[in-house]
């Protein structure tokens, strides 16, 4: 089963490429011209998102550097320990919505400190694997088309993150505790 899944992961990209290019050729699309035509936008999009990325990433970096994450984690510790949530994983719950690389860093820390087969490592793995960095996605996707009034998009993203955290705790307690 796992081998099959890994195989699919490996082949997904090559198969996608072959399919698109072959259909293009068969349909007599000038694929080289159309490729370069589409690729021209790459630079434009990347430059367009810079202001949005700067606003979000500077804000998030400052927030993380201030020690606020640890303060929130400490505040929640007593409550969450009742639900069999290891305190090590608390910063991860907050960080995973803010920064993908930071979440992976915290996860590696937990894995190294609490041991390969500990409950904390398993819970952290599920929490990191099941999430996407909400703030980053928001900055990139809305930034690319110049949306500044985001309405309820962030609230929904963060609430979905919380749902994910609760689900992760419940599932891991059922399976691994």
């Amino acid at each position, binding site marked *: 089963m796992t081998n099959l899944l890994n195989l699919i992961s490996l082949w997904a990209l090559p198969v996608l490429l072959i399919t698109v290019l072959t259909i293009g050729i068969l349909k007599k699309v000038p694929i080289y011209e159309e490729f370069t035509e589409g690729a021209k936008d*790459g630079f434009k999009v990347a430059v367009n*998102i810079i202001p949005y990325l700067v606003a979000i990433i500077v804000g998030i970096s*400052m927030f993380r550097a201030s020690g606020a994450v640890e303060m929130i984690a400490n505040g929640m510790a007593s409550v969450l320990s009742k639900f069999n949530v290891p305190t090590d994983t608390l910063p991860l719950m907050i960080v995973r919505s803010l920064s993908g690389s930071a979440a992976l860093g915290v996860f590696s820390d937990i894995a190294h400190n609490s041991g390969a087969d500990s409950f904390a490592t398993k819970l952290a793995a599920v929490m990191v694997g099941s999430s996407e960095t909400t703030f980053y996605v928001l900055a990139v996707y809305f930034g690319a088309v110049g949306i500044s009034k*985001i309405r309820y998009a962030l609230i929904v993203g963060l609430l*979905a993150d919380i749902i994910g955290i609760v689900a992760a705790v419940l599932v891991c307690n059922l399976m691994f505790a």
Partner: protein
Amino acid sequence: MNYIFYFLIVVSIIIGAINGRLQEVVNALMSGAELSVKIAISLIGIMAFWLGVMNIAEKSGLIAWISKLLKPVTRILFNEIPSDSPAVGDIAMNFTANAFGLANAATPFGIKAMEELQKENDDKSTASNSMCLFLGMNTAGFQLIPTTVLAVLVGIGYKNPTEIIAPTLFVTLIAFIGAIVLAKVFQKFYPTGKVNKEVQDD
């Protein structure tokens, strides 16, 4: 967004000062700004590549075909865009790429989808319901195999790393469905940018 931005900056400075980490906070400002540009620049090449591939897929009619195939699903989820909009095909490509963990292909597809959704949007600076829904679905990070996490677990000598695949999939599905339901509920309470056009297109 104005309040969030204000909150992030001002609260960080105040909490940083309380914790005696003001210097770190100021440093984070510099490094964060630099990092943003690095991320954007590093996206250029891969973005250009996949946007090029997407253009071929669009011109060959592949995107239109996928859109047609997914019509039953997208008509319910994205009921505010015309069901033959290329956005539907782009959204489908974005989710396929996400599901297989092709993050660097998923982002250009997603941006392409946003651009198409923007064409249907009346107020260009305000997110439409469809855009919020699409963003919510993306922030849930639906993925079949968490490749990066597995790599870390293997790296630290975890005995049976694949046992986390099933729970992760389950959790990400719950969050994904949650995002869709929440987006559909919240859209009732937030007015759209401009008053909806009184045009019935069916």
